[in-house]
């Protein structure tokens, strides 16, 4: 259930010396004094307000003192009512009167709220406002003979409100939107990149699982490394064993020298060559050394036993 608090309407005028008194538990509607905005009534060759708003800075360009202005407009009969105002000036005045922006429900121009007033209303000690044609203007109190005190109780607020740009004087909206858009785009790109990376990661994980299935690997890499180590050792030994055998078979032996025994067990290759004497022993060993085979030899009678660790 949503509770709606009552609202109080206040008239904000920079020239008034009276402090605005209101019930702080209530929300406030603010009506801006004509001295807080600039107004023009114009007939423009455009149909909607949005198009008019684009033209406002150039329409007011030559008539405003230096400052940071916001603009708004609304349609009034066949014409448009055009406004320029300084957000910071209004905000400062609100703060000066102890009105927080949180408590402010709406902000209106006096122009849009007093479109039909029978006589002039005094808004402060020195000024009154009255309708000149359809524009609400200020005049010194002395000039006005028939005047009344401003009574806000009878005012029915229109739908023409403005929203003050609290930080408009620091960064203009355009830049703010650009920076916001840039940061948002960057965030979106990063989110996209995270998504792509996540998909890639999942694909790799899936491929890893498929790899295990395809090559019938064991469940842990430790087991697989152990198996690889085991079979690599076998392969290396078998390769070295065959190489060593081929070197022995390729030995240049004398006609009386013969290989009489080839034995391989427990990774030890033993080759016995008969008909070898001390002098020819060195020739055989030299041949083996030239092939890079590290061996141990023993010569018993005329038999040379060469042992190679595989």
């Amino acid at each position: 259930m949503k509770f709606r608090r009552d609202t109080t309407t206040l008239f904000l005028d920079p020239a008034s010396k009276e402090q605005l008194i209101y019930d702080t538990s209530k929300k406030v509607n603010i009506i801006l004094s004509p001295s807080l905005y600039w107004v023009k009534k114009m007939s423009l060759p455009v149909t909607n307000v949005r198009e008019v708003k684009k033209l406002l800075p150039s329409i007011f360009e030559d008539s405003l003192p230096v400052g940071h202005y916001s603009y708004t407009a609304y349609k009034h009969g066949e014409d448009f009512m055009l406004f320029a105002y300084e957000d910071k000036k209004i905000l400062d005045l609100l703060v000066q009167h102890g009105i927080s922006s949180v408590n402010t429900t709406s902000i209106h121009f006096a122009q849009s709220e007093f479109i039909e007033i029978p006589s002039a209303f005094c808004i402060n000690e020195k000024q009154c406002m009255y309708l000149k044609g359809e524009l609400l203007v200020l005049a010194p109190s002395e000039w006005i003979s028939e005047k009344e005190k401003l009574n806000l109780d009878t005012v029915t607020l229109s739908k023409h409100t403005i929203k003050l740009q609290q930080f408009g004087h620091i960064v203009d909206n355009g830049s703010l939107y650009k920076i916001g858009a840039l940061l948002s785009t960057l965030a979106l790109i990063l989110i996209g990149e995270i998504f792509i990376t996540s998909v890639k990661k999942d694909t790799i994980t899936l491929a890893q699982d498929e790899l295990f299935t395809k090559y019938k690997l064991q469940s842990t890499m430790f087991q697989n490394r152990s198996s690889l180590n085991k079979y690599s050792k076998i392969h290396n030994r078998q390769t070295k064993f065959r190489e060593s055998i081929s070197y022995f078979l390729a030995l240049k032996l004398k006609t009386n020298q013969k290989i009489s025994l080839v034995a391989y067990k427990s990774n030890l290759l033993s080759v016995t060559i008969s008909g070898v004497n001390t002098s020819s022993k060195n020739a055989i060993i030299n041949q083996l050394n030239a092939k890079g085979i590290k061996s141990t030899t023993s010569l018993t009678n005329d038999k040379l036993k060469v042992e190679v660790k595989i």
Partner: protein
Amino acid sequence: MNQINPLHIGALLVALIAFLLFTLSSMKTEMLEEKTLYETSEKLALKLSSLKDVYADKKKTKRAIERVLSQSSLKTAALDVKREKSSVRISSKSIDTKALNALMGKILNGSYNITELKIKKLSETKASLKMEIKW
């Protein structure tokens, strides 16, 4: 009138971007680790698979040995073949050197895990043989 400070939105966006960058960086690191692991696993798998194919495929090794033993040059050789669960033992007290050459030529040029071998020359044409091949 309640407006959010654009600096707060900016700070929120910057914080969000910082968080996203951190997340992305962590994910990229994880992905690279996964990729490295995959590449390592693939290399290991290929090596292991090819080595197992040669040295651990019991059926394939058995079939290949049977083919070698059934060749015509070995039919006359009195080879004693003992087939065990994880090995085969081939021996002969006296084998013709030609048959021995044919047998050893096939065995040594094939990819067999020879764990034991003993060839002893008996005469110019005869030798004894003892060999064990495992899988």
